[in-house]
């Protein structure tokens, strides 16, 4: 059996044992998988979760916390480890302040992944001539970028926002495009609006210092 197939089979066994509430056996299976895949962050998260569920624990809660921190170190771009650590810090250690910091890191990573997915989806929809659907994805991107922008704006920045956009609740937001996806968002936004404008009467472009 190939290593990948045996890994998938192992994960499926873990899921079955977990659902049957046989946490000791599930933990044993995760430990077997970790022997072959020590760098797999997901396995460390599973391990930490199962340790907490054991009736007769063989590991301490501090070890569970360390496993979560290891998962974060192993997969720095994934939000799962940070969010799971947040849950642990709040529920097990009753430390909402530390939990809030971990959640904040996890949420930022999740937001970035979602933005990347939505920008990709908008590009694909645009190629399929589905401008309205592409625009919906981009509006969600702008909303997420707005939520993620916490930096205080200077006077000159306030005078000239890059984008004005309306949320689904009807509020109007001003947003300066920045971050790793800013250029891509501006480019696809301009393309989508340019294609859409002859039919809908929308502005020809909504790039920097524009709006829609």
């Amino acid at each position: 059996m190939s290593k990948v197939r045996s890994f998938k089979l192992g994960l499926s066994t873990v899921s079955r044992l977990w659902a049957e509430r046989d946490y000791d056996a599930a933990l044993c299976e995760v430990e077997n998988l970790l022997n072959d895949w020590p760098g797999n962050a997901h396995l460390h998260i599973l391990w930490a979760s199962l340790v907490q569920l054991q009736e007769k624990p063989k590991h301490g809660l501090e070890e569970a916390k360390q496993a979560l921190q290891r998962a974060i170190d192993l997969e720095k771009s994934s939000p799962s480890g940070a969010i799971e650590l947040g849950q642990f810090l709040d529920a097990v250690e009753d430390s909402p302040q530390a939990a809030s910091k971990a959640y904040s890191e996890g949420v930022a990573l999740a937001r970035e992944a979602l933005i990347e997915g939505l920008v990709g989806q908008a590009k694909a929809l645009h190629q399929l001539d589905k401008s309205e659907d592409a625009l919906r994805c981009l509006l969600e991107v702008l909303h997420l970028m707005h939520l993620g922008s916490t930096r205080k704006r200077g006077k000159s920045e306030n005078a000239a926002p890059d984008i004005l956009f309306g949320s689904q609740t009807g509020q109007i937001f001003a947003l300066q495009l920045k971050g790793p996806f800013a250029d891509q968002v501006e480019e696809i936004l301009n393309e989508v609006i340019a294609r859409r404008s002859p039919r809908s009467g929308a502005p020809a472009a909504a790039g920097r210092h524009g709006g829609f």
Partner: protein
Amino acid sequence: MAQDNDLADDLIPGSLKRSKSYHQDYGKKTYKEIKGLAAANPPDKRVRQMKKLIEQTQRLQQKGKRRRS
């Protein structure tokens, strides 16, 4: 899923009973009693901690079920 009549001690696994948030004197209270006491104003810190342990257990148990679906 935790039921209102379940005792805290039956809902919190042995592992989480080693947390500083676990308080044995609330172990015989039902989940419903714990929720009620945690909602009091001002809330009892120890009850609130017990409630969080129960809900963490529930969440982790459900995680296994979600993985199967």
